[in-house]
């Protein structure tokens, strides 16, 4: 039976991008359905009634939600393609731990820079740098977080390779300087150059416009 795979996403969501990358790495054909979160489709509401969020993966009509859950589902379903995880349970555990860390800690501090006033930005930047030190260590002796090939953790934190330069343009704050984080710096280039990753980036100009607008709106709302 031919697989029917659909991905509900927005054009800019870094979480949805993880799924695009994973499906492409696995060589899975899929249809993209772009959602307007201001006007959610009935398809989205039906398939993610609890959170009404994207991304949602629809595989032969059955829905899977939450980007990390979707990544694990993809890896366990399409087992012949590019593996997202190591076979070693400890390496798997490490990948899961740092992926959570990326979302729970690093993403929050990056948002703090994006949406903060000057003082908040300095705080958030210091925190982000602490977080990045841990990720820098994870790259020791490796080309990607996944080792020789792109893995789950690369996909989980891959948003850095693109969004941090957008952040720099909007706020003037640079997080990953080559001298301070040489491994992360190199990883950002290598990861972004991988064909599946390169061809999937959303328009950088559009992202700058969007995040700049979000920042202005947020700061206006605070005052």
């Amino acid at each position: 039976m031919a697989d029917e795979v659909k991905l509900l996403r927005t054009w800019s969501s870094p979480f949805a991008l993880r799924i695009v990358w994973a499906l492409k790495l696995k060589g899975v054909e899929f249809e993209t359905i772009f959602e307007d979160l201001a006007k959610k489709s009935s398809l989205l509401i039906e398939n993610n009634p609890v959170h009404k969020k994207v991304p949602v993966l629809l595989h032969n009509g059955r829905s899977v939600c939450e980007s990390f859950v979707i990544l694990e589902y993809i890896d366990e379903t399409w087992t012949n393609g590019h593996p997202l995880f190591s076979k070693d349970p400890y390496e798997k555990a490490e990948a899961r731990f740092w992926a959570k860390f990326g979302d729970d800690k690093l993403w929050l501090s990056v948002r703090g820079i994006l949406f903060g006033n000057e003082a908040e930005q300095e705080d958030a930047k210091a925190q982000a740098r602490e977080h990045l030190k841990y990720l820098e260590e994870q790259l020791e002796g490796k080309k990607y977080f996944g080792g020789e090939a792109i893995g789950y953790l690369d996909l989980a934190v891959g948003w850095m390779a693109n969004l941090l330069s957008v952040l720099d343009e909007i706020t003037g704050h640079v997080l990953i300087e080559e001298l301070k984080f040489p491994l992360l710096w190199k990883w950002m280039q290598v990861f972004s150059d991988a064909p599946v990753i390169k061809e999937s980036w959303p328009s950088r100009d559009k992202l700058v416009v969007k995040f700049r607008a979000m920042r202005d709106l947020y700061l206006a709302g605070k005052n």
Partner: protein
Amino acid sequence: METSEELKLLGFWVSPTVARVGWALGLKGIKDYVYVEEDVMYNKSPLLLQLNPVHKKVPVLVHHGKPIAESDVIVKYIDETWKNYPLFSQDPYEKAKILSFAKFGDKLYADAFKAMWSRGEEQEKVVKSTIEELQKIEEEIKGRKFFGGESLGYLDIALGWISYLLPIWEEVAFIKIFDPIKFPGIALWAENFLSHPVIKEKLPPKDRAVEYFQERRAFITSIIYG
């Protein structure tokens, strides 16, 4: 055969996330490990800070000298390392549903905890949403002995705190969320869950737990409400 030197669990007696790890090990029949009680409130050990520098929290499982933190990461690691008594369905879709629902359970946990320490309108609001969220749990358990079916699974472990901790929080905060009449499915599940031998032996003593959360609540409210 694992020796007790090879497996170590750093924990805290009343922590539900530590309990998850204890339950997972118990279900797999693993009894031979060193348990280290951490004084997480006042005096974290250098060992804990060294093994979990990022979060400085328990549980931490150390296996062959390598530390793993975060209860969900640890339980998955245990399930993938010891293949007996699988905690997940073999079917990727069923597994995905379990993981999504467990994430929802985390939100319920956060809201229920907030219901425990908050006051006034804020408390009313979060009690209301906690009850709504519990309704989804009720729908999920309907007609089944455990979330894992006939035997315990990952979701039972992840949601286990509902059976014994939620009633303690209700007592401490003088609130009512888990009404057995409104949630008969969960009530029956809780009874089955709490009487399971592996679960029973890892529950904190009730009186001590009530006292502990009374203190916690007083401390948190003094900071937030002054």
